[in-house]
């Protein structure tokens, strides 16, 4: 029974790859959802290309968010930036109340239509969970370990790289996981401002009243999100085991 979830995930992955590479195979399944002989498979673009663009948008935004959020979390937990710690906490709380659609819409006047406003919205929205978790990770380190590192004569920089960052890695990864899953879904909204993502398929379906489009767009995103979510969980467990911090 232990390998059952793994097999289920591999099957989902295989199904996902099959669908985006040869969607034609699945046409009979989706055909009943269409009316008036409308196409059952998205025909205004390549599903594989859109999926890859979707993933690229999320990857770029998340990478940027990781660099900035972890950097900020490191800064406010050093003596130099300690002054900013309470403020950064409340800013994170305030930031989380901004609806993604509003961020997206407000970014358009500044940078125009297309991929850029989507990247900005995903970046800003992705910052918060990563920052919060990095902060939790860096502020809840076991005191005796940090003390031991100091006693062993490590410089602050060595302590950060060799002790603090590896120990808080599992918690940080959990933040990245939250951020990626949210971004994957939010990226679809980017297509309302003409970004090339899987949202295009869904919106085309909404506009032409074609349920098959809505369903395939939604399911591809959901499948990717579930797989990435589980992949990150496995990574977190691995990181936690390496650090001897069983969770």
């Amino acid at each position: 029974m232990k390998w059952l979830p793994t097999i289920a995930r591999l099957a989902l992955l295989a199904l996902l790859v099959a669908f985006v590479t040869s969607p034609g195979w699945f046409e009979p399944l989706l055909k009943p959802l269409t009316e008036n002989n409308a196409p059952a498979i998205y025909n205004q673009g390549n599903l594989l290309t859109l999926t890859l663009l979707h993933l690229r948008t999320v990857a770029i935004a998340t990478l940027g968010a990781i660099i900035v959020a972890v950097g900020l979390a490191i800064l406010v937990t050093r003596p130099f930036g300690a002054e900013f710690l309470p403020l950064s906490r409340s800013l994170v709380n305030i930031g989380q109340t901004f609806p993604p659609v509003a961020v997206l819409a407000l970014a358009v006047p500044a940078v125009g239509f297309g991929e850029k406003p989507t990247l900005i919205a995903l970046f800003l929205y992705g910052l918060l969970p990563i920052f919060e978790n990095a902060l939790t990770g860096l502020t809840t380190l076991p005191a005796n370990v940090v003390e031991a590192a100091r006693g062993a004569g490590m410089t602050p920089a060595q302590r950060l790289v060799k002790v603090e960052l590896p120990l808080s890695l599992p918690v940080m990864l959990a933040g990245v996981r939250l951020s990626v899953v949210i971004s994957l879904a939010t990226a679809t909204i980017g297509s309302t401002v003409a970004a090339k993502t899987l949202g295009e398929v869904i919106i085309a379906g909404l506009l032409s009243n074609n349920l098959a489009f809505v369903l395939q767009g939604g399911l591809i995103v959901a499948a990717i999100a579930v797989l990435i979510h589980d992949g990150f969980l496995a990574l977190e467990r691995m990181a936690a085991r390496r650090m001897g911090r069983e969770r």
Partner: protein
Amino acid sequence: MGIRFDKLGAVIAAIAAYACLVAPFATFRANRIVAGEARTMLESLPPATGWALMAIVTAAALIALLRTPPMLRLGASLTALVALAVLIGVAGSFLTPADNNYARVSPAHGFWLLVFAFALLLADVLTRLALSPWARMLTLAGAAACIGLLLASGSWDSLSILREYAGRADSFRAEGGKHLTLALGSLAAAAIVGVPLGILCHRVDALRAGVLNVLNIIQTIPSIALFGLLIAPLGWIAAHVPGAAALGIRGIGTAPAFLALFLYSLLPVVANTVVGLAGVPRAANDAARGMGMTGRQRLFRVELPLALPVILTGIRIVLVQNIGLATIAALIGGGGFGVFVFQGIGQMAMDLVLLGALPTVALAFAAAIVLDAVVELTSIRKSGVPS
């Protein structure tokens, strides 16, 4: 004793200096959709007023830059914010030529940066003052009253966002009502269904993993897809179940939006109910059992009151999330402030986008502050410290 600088103050002063001297304060456009012309602070205001604002901003930035007592910083940030709020309205009427209904004046990024800088200062002071929950709600009410007063006085009427509003006052009110109905109604439905479901999941181990997994997967479906997917089943119900259409159940419109928001709301409510109940100390439960309380009495008098702060945290997550997600309802004809956002995107009229986005942000922000305060009030009572 040397002069000591505040690190955050240095950031604020740098932003303020850039916003005052380099960035445009307002944008002037001959009509609604042409490209705007930038106007600096001194060009946007009558000369004396412009210099006065410059002086206020400089003084406030200096107070921020130096290490000054919190009350002085509070006063400086409030003065600067109020001055900015009032004077952007003055800039609107100053820049608009007389008898010209086409010209549009909107705040430019210099204005927004100044607001951001002093809001940052205000947030920092408020965080350091560690206000009590009631004081935070009073502050919020005060801020809302100030904005309401400015809106009612008509001093902002010459700004482009209110020009957009003027032509749509009725539909703004109607969409606002729909937005609130969607967000609050789906929250109420999720609480009514979710809390009992959470209690059930807490009691029945076999159910817990399954229910939470299903709700987790629903969360991964992108909102626009879920909204769209519900169109078909609801359309079918409306066509085939007698009386359903009369109840307002339709394929497009509010019904699928309501249902989608409800489904998204279930996970935080159910998950937090389960976590809250699991966190009830065993000693409390044992004591209640020892006193001879029945299962139901224990639930209502011990477990639920102790789990309340955690459950309310779930409700807070849902409410903030729903206020944001309700904007998407406009894509499937469900109404709400999203109508203006998407119309604005379609017409490339950014003031219209703001007309939809700003109230949404304000609502979500206010909801977060109020519910955070409520959560804190209930947990204070729980730990036995008089509030």
